[in-house]
């Protein structure tokens, strides 16, 4: 495999992990978030600081990174208890802008220069480069998806789904909105932290603008395009959003326009996502493989 493909694949795998986390918050618990890149950034900065300033290895730092990001996610998830829908969307946009501004303006976080010199990940004295690091990302992606799968089959997952469909009714049958919204935020932002740590050790240089609002929009687009609330949706979305700009590379100057117009057309004509209920792909599949109902 060429280095180009490995790099592309690694980025897609990392984005898919972060998108899985966003899917837990938006797709499972129904809490719109347009600031997920902030948590990705918090994970990446925590990992970078622990590696560069404290000299911890990736493996020693990883639990701390995930815990810190999930803790911040818990704190910033608190507004979601007070505001919902559109207010929550704008609040999370605001959180994204503020977190980016803090990274950019506080000297401790490297300011505009960012943080460089982040070491590679090593496993049993073996330094993970290109393909090995890609494999590591795939392992973590599989883990994230297993967590999502376990969640959809657990009581907590069902509680989240109930909250998404109708919060008042769910609260009426004894599901605590506070507990399960915060649970979704903690799991979702924890996955963003994991993705951030992988990103920091992959790029080995990070700066605040990597985690701006446009990234949050792409992350949300991934799960919307793939199919919100489905298990495979975030992965499919990450692959599509990751590959599209590369496919349009021959268009040079028109590349971004094609990409945004395609995004517009997809959301306009397939708003439930490619794998969502009632999507074209599902309908075709259903016609090809008629399933007997028990």
């Amino acid at each position, binding site marked *: 495999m060429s280095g180009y493909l490995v790099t592309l694949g690694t980025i897609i795998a990392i984005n898919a992990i972060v998108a899985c986390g966003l899917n837990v918050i938006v797709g499972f618990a129904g809490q719109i978030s*347009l600031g997920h890149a902030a948590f990705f950034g918090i994970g990446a900065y925590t990992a970078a600081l622990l590696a560069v300033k404290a000299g911890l290895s990736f493996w020693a730092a990883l639990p701390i990174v995930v815990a810190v990001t999930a803790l911040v996610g818990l704190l910033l998830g608190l507004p979601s208890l007070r*505001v919902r*829908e559109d207010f929550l969307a704008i609040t999370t946009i605001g959180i994204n802008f503020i977190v980016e*501004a803090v990274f950019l303006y506080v000297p401790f976080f490297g300011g505009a220069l960012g943080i460089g010199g982040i070491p590679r990940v090593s496993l049993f004295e073996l330094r993970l480069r290109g393909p090995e690091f890609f494999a590591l990302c795939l392992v973590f992606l599989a883990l994230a998806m297993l967590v999502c799968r376990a969640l959809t089959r657990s009581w907590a997952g069902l509680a989240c789904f109930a909250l998404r469909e109708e919060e008042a009714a769910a609260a009426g049958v004894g599901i605590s909105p506070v507990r399960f919204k915060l649970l979704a935020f903690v799991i979702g932002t924890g996955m963003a932290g994991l993705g951030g740590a992988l990103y920091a050790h992959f790029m080995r240089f990070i700066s605040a603008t990597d985690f701006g609002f446009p990234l949050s929009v792409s992350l949300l687009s991934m799960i*919307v395009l793939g199919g919100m609330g489905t298990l495979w949706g975030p992965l499919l979305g990450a692959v599509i959003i990751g590959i599209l700009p590369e496919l349009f590379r021959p268009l040079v100057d028109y590349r971004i326009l094609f990409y945004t117009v395609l995004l517009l057309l997809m959301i306009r004509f397939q708003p439930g996502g490619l794998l969502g209920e009632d999507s074209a792909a599902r309908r075709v599949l259903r016609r090809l493989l008629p399933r007997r109902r028990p």
Partner: protein
Amino acid sequence: MHLFLEQLLNGIATGSIYALVTLGLALVYGILRILHVAHAAVYTIGAYIGVMLFNLTGSLIAAVVGSMAVSAAVGVAIERFVYFPLLKYPPFVPLIGSIAVFLSVEELCRLVAGPQILTFPARLPFPEFQVGGVTVSATLSAIYCITAGVLLVLWFVTTRTRLGLAMRAASQDIAISDAMGINSHFIVSVTFVIGSAVAAVAGILVGIYYNQVYPTMGAIPAYKTLALIVVGGLGSVPGAVAAAMLLGLAETLLIGFANIPLPRDALAFIAMIIVLMWRPQGLLGSR
């Protein structure tokens, strides 16, 4: 004292421009409950059409009228082709559509007009005057007069005409107003026409004020105005205007006189989160 007065005058101008952009957003949110991020795209288009017509004809009036017409058409097109078919989906679906429209228009402007900054060398035919020994330039005076005029006309239309009555009815409950014989789809289009035309005016004023028109000029207003309509109370037009004025003043005065370690664009969002935690319905909102 001189400096303070100058900053104050600049702050009012910044606030006025925010108010003009936020106006359309608050109107659209009030009626469709959609976060119209693409409104900033309409504002960018307005500025571009304005500067192009001005360079072509040399007449500022032609530029303003033409740009208002084109922007209104773009606004209605966005409503018809993007928002209307997506209304039955959860609110984030039209929101993503809106962001996609916004990014596409930004790219389109860059491809058509080039990435460079265009200058807008128009002189506005408004009188200069003196306040406390400080000269208010023709541009500032134009911004004040036009904002006041737009707000006055809008107040008159929404509170004193049958059209305004229909608009207020549709923003309270679109289904009931339909049942009462109001052609609410027409009212929605009228709302987009008004909001987009005002955004075009704001775009031209900003272009002349800073003498700059560039493809990404809408990027910061796009999201900052969202914070403003939240602070004002979602859907409350007077609240949004008040919040815009306050923010314009706060940004200019705080950046001028207090040493804040954060960029001025984060200020709006910090204010927004504080307001949301303290008064979730916004400053002038009711729920």
